[in-house]
């Protein structure tokens, strides 16, 4: 069954007259895929990812997550899904300053129903999975860009979500660090069977994916397996 199914998604921000950010987008994604979304700047990639990640709502069209239309969820249920079923990785890392890597990774658990006894184990294994064990007590200010993004990935992993969304996760990193982050994401996809949907505009990053969706002017221009 499809994990994600969207039909004819449209998004109007209202301000930009006549030009919708998304203009009729439809596709399916199954569990376990690693999908890269590419396209020029302003083409609607982030908008699409935000809608898929329950951070925003489409103006029209349908979105089924795990077979259920998101129209059926209440505001609080959406928050719960954001917490338990998805993990989000941002270009700007968005780690809390003055909180250690451990504390940052713990954050989603504070809002979860995961029993407290499991927290420590989950936090530590998430941090190990991104290779940051030696930085566990450090503040974000003491980390390099690549390490920050790995901490952010650990935070996305800690609730063991069904799908991880990453919006230009390597956009703020040099190519060496970007490659390391991508290795971690592909590894999560291959060995741990995490579904990963990432936005990028670098061909070198897109080659890690098993499927490439190309977006332009709010529409899907191509969608192919590689």
């Amino acid at each position: 069954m499809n994990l994600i199914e969207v039909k004819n998604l449209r998004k109007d921000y209202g301000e930009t007259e006549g030009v919708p950010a998304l203009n009729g987008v439809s596709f399916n994604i199954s569990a376990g895929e690693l999908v890269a979304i590419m396209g020029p700047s302003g083409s609607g990639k982030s908008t699409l990812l935000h809608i898929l990640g329950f951070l925003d709502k489409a103006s029209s069209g349908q979105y089924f997550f795990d077979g259920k239309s998101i129209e059926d969820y209440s505001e609080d249920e959406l928050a719960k899904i954001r917490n338990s079923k998805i993990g989000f990785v941002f270009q700007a890392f968005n780690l809390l300053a003055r909180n250690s890597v451990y504390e940052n990774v713990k954050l989603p658990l504070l809002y979860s129903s995961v029993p407290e006894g499991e927290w420590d184990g989950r936090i530590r294994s998430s941090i190990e999975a991104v290779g940051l064990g030696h930085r566990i007590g450090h503040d974000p200010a003491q980390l390099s860009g690549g390490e920050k993004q790995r901490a952010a990935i650990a935070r996305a992993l800690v609730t063991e979500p069904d799908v991880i969304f990453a919006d230009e996760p390597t956009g703020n990193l040099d190519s060496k660090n970007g490659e390391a982050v991508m290795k971690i994401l592909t590894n999560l996809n291959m060995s741990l069977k995490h579904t990963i949907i990432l936005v990028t505009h670098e061909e070198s990053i897109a080659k890690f994916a098993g499927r490439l969706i190309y977006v332009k002017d709010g529409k899907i221009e191509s969608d192919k397996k590689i």
Partner: protein
Amino acid sequence: MRTKFLFSTSLRGLGAHKSRSFLTILGIVIGITAIILVMSIGQGAQNLILSQIQGMGSKTIVVAPGRQPSGPSDFAQIFSDSLKKRDIDLLSLKENVPYAKHIIPVVFGGENSSYGDETYRMTVFGSDERVFDIFELFPEAGVLFSESEVKGHQPVVVIGSTVKDELFGDSEAVGERIRIKGKNFRIIGVLPKKGQVSFFNFDTMAVIPYTVAQEDIFGIKYYHRFLIEADQESHIDAAVDDIKIVLRNSHNITDPDKDDFFVETQADLASRIGTITDILTLLLVSIAAISLVVGGIGIMNIMLVAVTERTKEIGLRKSIGATNRDILRQFLLEAIVLTSVGGLVGIFLGALFSFIISVVLTKTLGLSWSYSFPVFAAVLGIAVSGIIGLVFGIYPARKASRKNPIEALRYE
């Protein structure tokens, strides 16, 4: 989010800006300090006054002419002449007021006295020999007058310490004669300095037999007060009821609303004074409360700043699963923690200052001022400061909770 983590999250938020948090709560600290101070001093003053009232003996019932005064400046009863000799005779009958031990008449008024070239305006207090027992008065020099001098209309006087100082200075007073309203009185005794006792200050009084006071000083046939002593404290209420019945019969009064006398016990006096000090305390507390409002506005202001500064954090928390309610509670709790800490500090400072004041009053003015920590005010202080956090924190917290996660994350 679980309450436990809500607390640590909020404390962390505050800890990031320690000096700013401290300055913000100053308004609350000052307001709560002022309230504790006022309430503690009000309580101390009330205790002081009550302890002085008790100097009259807790079994004493006061009967005054006229109607019940409606307030502290209502003197209507002074001009009434309803308490007569006949009333004393009726009240004295055992079958009428079985629990009355003594019925003591009192007349009083301000008069000039002179000795040689010295003059002094004092209060002439006419009563009988038993009044000295009721007020526990003993002579410092000489003796007190006795029943035979009261019955025999003897012009003798026992003077208070201030009267003695004003007229005689350091020289001997006992045995000398002073003039009051053209009549010579022989001083037979001097009272020690005693200060205010109940409503009377015997230091500025000349106590003479009431028979002489009625006839030669005031020229009246009625009385200003009856002091009635009950045999036991538990009989006071019954005695008061009997006294009212006797006096109504004697004065032909059928409607209690038309009483031309009123009866007051120590308990009544205490509660009247309690009411006055309570009103004063309340007034001062309301003034102090203004600074709490100012403090609350300061809290609201700083919380609005915090919400704006932490827009990105709010966006992140929402994107990883915080509900609107989680965010609301986090910022509301921060405001409440801020104001409650202010309240605790204020309670500590208020208690400290009022303790210092009580020590100063005792040491310098010689008042028997007893310090008591106002537990009620402390509880009130905590509650009020918490409520201020709630009231002034709710608007910033709502603002935080309603932020759209995407826009919040994009905030720079």
